[in-house]
Every structure is written in C-alpha cells, then in structure tokens.
C-alpha cells in the first residue's frame, strides 16, 4: 500500500512536499531519511514522464490553426447576419447595413489613431430607427496625452471614416477615456 499525501510518511514529510521537491537535489533531511529516499525513487518515473508530457508537443497541435480558422469563419458569418441598421430610405424602401460593418468602421478608425487603444464600442440606434445612429466608444490612452484632445480626435476620425466608407450620418459619438497605459 502506497502512502498518500493525507497519510504522512513515518518521517512526517508528506508526499506533496516530496513531489514539490523532486526537481531539486535531496535536502539534508532526505539524504538521511530512508523513507524519503524510497518515496523519491517511487515518484521519479512519474515525475519524469509528466515533465516530458508537459514540455512535449502533442500531435494534435497541428490541427489548432484549422480549428480556430473554421470557428472564426462561422463566427464572422454569424455576426455579419446580425442586427441591421437603416442607412437611408429610398423610394424602394429602407437600405440597411449590418452592425458588423459599422463596428468594423469604428475599429479601423480608432486603430489608426496613435497612443490610443479601443476598448468597447457600441451602436445606439435612433429611437424610431429612421434617424441617425449614435455611437459609444471607450478607450485606453497612453499616459501623458490630453484626454479631451484624444476624445475629440477620436470623434473626428470616426466621423470621417463613416462619411468616407459608409456614407451614413451619425448622431452623437460619445467617447470615454477609461484607462491610461504606459
């Protein structure tokens, strides 16, 4: 019967303690203690194989890229079919645009600004879905920047990106600087 962690060896040193010390040479106690020496010998094959496992490469790892690629394709397809917003109303009816494209325009705009990292971004539809949408954006900015200027530049850049890429009027663009990074 092998002693368990909960049942200390006759020398009172637990298996947990011994297991944790296996990566180091035996200490003074272990050099003297026959029980600990026997436990070390008993645990060594397991420790060695576990170490090999931990540091080795699994054959399945070659699949990782494919798995992630397939899932991301599905996710992108799903979100492209997401909420639609009215871009404009034509004689044939409303022309709608996916929220994915609008959020992508926000991300591209903010990513083009130096010293700023986008955190959250949200589209707020007009109450009757006919007026202009509003946007809410939160940022982290580099230390030493002026928060008011950063917010203003962010508004300008997003508005310009929307005008250039989407041609959609925007109501308000609320920008919150909620974190500072070095």
């Amino acid at each position, binding site marked *: 019967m092998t002693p368990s962690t909960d049942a200390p060896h006759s020398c009172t040193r637990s298996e947990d303690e011994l297991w944790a010390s296996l990566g180091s040479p035996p200490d003074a106690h272990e050099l003297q203690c026959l029980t600990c020496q026997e436990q070390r010998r008993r*645990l060594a094959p*397991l420790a060695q194989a576990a170490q090999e496992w931990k540091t080795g490469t699994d054959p399945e790892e070659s699949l990782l890229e494919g798995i992630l690629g397939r*899932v991301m394709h599905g996710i992108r397809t799903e979100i492209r079919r997401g909420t639609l917003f009215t871009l404009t109303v034509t004689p044939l009816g409303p022309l709608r645009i996916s929220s994915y494209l609008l959020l992508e325009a926000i991300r591209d705009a903010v990513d083009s600004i130096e010293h700023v990292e986008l955190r959250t971004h949200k589209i707020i539809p007009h109450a009757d879905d006919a007026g202009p949408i509003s946007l809410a954006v939160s940022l982290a900015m580099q230390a030493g920047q002026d928060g008011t200027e950063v917010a203003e530049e962010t508004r300008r850049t997003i508005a310009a990106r929307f005008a250039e890429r989407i041609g959609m009027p925007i109501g308000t663009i609320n920008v919150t600087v909620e974190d500072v990074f070095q």
Partner: protein
Amino acid sequence: MSGPEKPDQQQLGNLVARAQSGDPRAFEKILTYHQRGLLRFCTSMLVVPGDAEDVLQEVYLTAWRQLSTLHAPEALGTWLYRIARHRCIDHLRKRTPQPRDLQGPESLAGDIAASDDRSGENPESNAETNAAMTDLRRFVHELPANQRECWVLKEIHDLSYADISAIVSEPIATVRGRISRARTTLAERMRPWK
C-alpha cells in the same frame, strides 16, 4: 508550455473589452494565447482521438456566445478551462460507452501486464521515454474523471490549486485530495519504469 507571448493584464483587459463589443479579431487573438492549453486539456479528458477537435470548436463557440458573462478579464484563463471542462463532461455523458474505445483490442489487464513486463528494463533512449509518456497518458485516461482533470490541470498545465478549485467548482481541499489520489495511483502504475 510555449505559445504566443501573453499580453499583460492591461492589454488583456482591452482585448477582452473589444471582443465583448463584438470584435472577432480581438476574440481570435485571445484564443491564440489559450488554444494549445485548451486542446491539451480536452485531449487529456477525452478518450477518442478526434473528439478533442470537435469539443474544442464547441468551446470556442460557447466562449464567443458567453463572453459577456466574463466580468474579470484576469479570470479569462480559468473561465475558458471551465467551459472546456463542461463541454468535455457533456461530451463524455452523451457518448455511448465503448469498451477500450481508443486503445484498440488491448485490454486494461493487458496494458498493466505489458507495463509490468518492463519492470526489469532500464529505459534510457528517447523511444523508451516516449513509451513511458505514452503509458502515462493511458494511465491518466484510466483515472476517474474528477481525479484526471485535477491532476492534468496541476501537473501538465501548472495551474494553482486555487485556479483548479475555481475551474472544477470544488474546495481546494477536495482538489488537493484528488490530485494526491491520482498521483498515488499513477506513481504505482509507473513504477515499472524505474
């Protein structure tokens, strides 16, 4: 375990916030930091080759759909492992048990006998090291699932008792006990490799 260099807490917080706002690129980046560990965990938990691939896809989709429930970005790793654990358990429950699923015609007794037959050997070559690791993987698969998951998370993924406790939703003392029992069993079964 190696992999892409992990972002610091602030970068991770920004990435999680972006992903929660619906940015698939941020989500994809987050997953690249954890995909290797998650695949390893699923492979350890599931017996049939190929199942881990299916389950990992489910894990990613679940994570994307439930991302809004992650309130502390620093808990992202344990949150993902918790999802993986649930998906693995669901998968094992749904699966019709098949005798010795992945191990072909060998019986468990045969495995033990084969392992015992090596007791006089002194394995030194890489091939023997790999064989020892292969034996260990098999013995780990044969542990009770609750011991297996705790042992793998501790010894292969280097997670703390506190993190494992959060992942398996059990007190730390329970986790310690399971790891200890698993280690005792595994050490006994690996003894022939001495």
